[in-house]
């Protein structure tokens, strides 16, 4: 509990509770349908992967705008490379491509001493451009064989009516949570974001920490893309567009402070749940889908106000 307050996750917990209560009161029959709940958990799980990576990067006091494009690029690679490489081969290569994107950007930020906002904006355009050129704007599909492949089923199937992505999320989130809170790497990651100079003076190699975090973030985004396509093996060039904005919003709603050094994995997941829930509830209410982005904006600002005042009350410098 103390831990949750300190890491700023409490706002997201309250947010989810309030949101569920309001949706239930407002639209019980529309919200609590199998269709809505299963869509929300599926897409919240996918967005949560991207958000967890984004949150880790924000905790190091950097930002990654390329996650949506990397998500798309990994997904497109996975589908497009399947015919020559097979499902497991293309999965591996797609993850490698994602990791490489993170590595290149991380190294550019750290070694070039460039603002990550600009470097990853470049990454966003570059990766998206590659998607356009590579696919030529056409749609690619998995063959029936590839769809039936055990790996595709493992990543995109379902169990007891719950999508595979949700199980993967639970497992990987638990690992990331442990990594962040209970290992030397996590301690150094938080130190890097909370006080880079102090961390360095204690011998922490903050540059390595940041590069590893960028790689981790891109890998998570890439894996999310692959999960999506295992579920629905069809690519389009806009795959993952604007996802960086959703991920950053979700991370902030989940309590990540852009000043670095504070945030939590649980908060990131709940933030993703809030963002996705709004999308589906608005659809369920029959509102035009374009309203969704406005609502995310309102929730985002409300969350920032809440989290900042919480931080001030706790005496954190923000």
């Amino acid at each position, binding site marked *: 509990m103390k831990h949750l307050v300190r890491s700023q996750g409490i706002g997201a917990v309250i947010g989810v509770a309030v949101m569920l209560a309001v949706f239930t009161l407002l639209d019980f029959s529309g919200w609590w349908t199998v269709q809505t709940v299963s869509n929300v958990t599926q897409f919240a799980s996918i967005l949560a992967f991207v958000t967890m990576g984004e949150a880790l990067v924000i905790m190091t006091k950097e930002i990654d705008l390329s996650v949506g494009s990397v998500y798309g690029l990994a997904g497109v690679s996975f589908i497009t490379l399947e015919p020559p490489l097979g499902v497991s081969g293309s999965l591996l290569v797609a993850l490698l491509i994602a990791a490489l994107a993170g590595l290149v950007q991380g190294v550019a930020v750290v070694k070039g001493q460039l603002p990550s906002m600009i470097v990853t904006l470049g990454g966003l355009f570059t990766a998206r451009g590659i998607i356009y050129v590579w696919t030529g704007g056409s749609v690619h599909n998995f063959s029936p064989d590839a769809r039936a492949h055990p790996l595709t089923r493992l990543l995109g199937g379902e169990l007891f009516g719950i999508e595979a992505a949700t199980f993967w999320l639970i497992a990987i989130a638990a690992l990331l949570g442990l990594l962040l809170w209970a290992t030397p790497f996590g301690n150094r990651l938080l130190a890097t974001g909370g006080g880079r100079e*102090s961390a360095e003076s204690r011998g922490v190699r903050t540059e390595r920490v940041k590069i590893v975090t960028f790689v981790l973030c891109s890998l998570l985004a890439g894996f999310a893309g692959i999960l999506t396509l295992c579920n629905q093996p069809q690519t389009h060039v806009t795959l993952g567009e604007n996802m960086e904005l959703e991920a950053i919003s979700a991370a902030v709603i989940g309590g990540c402070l852009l000043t670095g050094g504070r945030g939590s994995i649980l908060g990131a997941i709940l933030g993703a749940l809030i963002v996705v829930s709004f999308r589906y509830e608005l659809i369920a209410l029959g509102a035009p889908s374009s309203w969704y982005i406005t609502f995310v904006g309102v929730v985002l600002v409300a969350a920032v106000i809440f989290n900042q005042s919480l931080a001030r009350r706790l005496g954190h410098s923000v």
Partner: protein
Amino acid sequence: MTNDHPLIQVKNLDLYFGAFHALRNVSVDFHAGELVGLVGDNGAGKTTLIRVLCGIHAPTSGEVFFDGRKVEKFHPKLAIDQGIETIQQSVGLCDNLSIARNFYLGREPVKRILGIPFLDFALMREKSARVIRQFGLRDNVSTDDEVERLSGGERQSVKIGRAVEFKNRVVIMDEPTNHLSVREREHVNELAVQLKEQGLLVIYITHDIFQVHKLADRIVIMENGAKVADASTDAMTAEELEEVIRQGGRVVEKRETA
């Protein structure tokens, strides 16, 4: 003073911050088992000099030798691995982390479970509490508390306790008694002497001339980025020392001993 080769040898060190000439042709030796007072006006370059020694800044030109070997790469990790522990003046604690996490930052004790290194929280709490309490951390402050809420003196206690816990060959103290009460101050000063008697090199930066004159074997005075005096405390009274600093370092060459 010992006669064997110096533990740290600085030769013709120059350091620029952009166009600003922060260290000017500094040459100085430090020996094991020595307590050296480093004094000088605000902005004289004391902190900058020791930041080169502990790997934070790389010099623009000049050489540093540690234990006879030339230092090729400057990084705090390398200095720490060589056995240089530093109480920094303005950095060293991450506000967002607990006392225990700060205490062990960069050298966290781990327990392996399935080969994965997990932080050994029990040890981190217990040991950091035991050490820091000796330096005036009150009982109502827990080592789980974030450093952000600590007072200046409490923060200083954490830094000092940490340096003592990990002391190895060199302890550099940059104005260690800042923010400390009279009692803690005496404790730190006694500690500096003890460390030296254990054979460590202690470099002690302060503005308290009279205090450091009592403690130190040797005093190095800096002014405007340059070393202007380097004299054994036997060769110069505290009053003379104060006069030199006030004069901006003129007149002292005749007392040079090194």
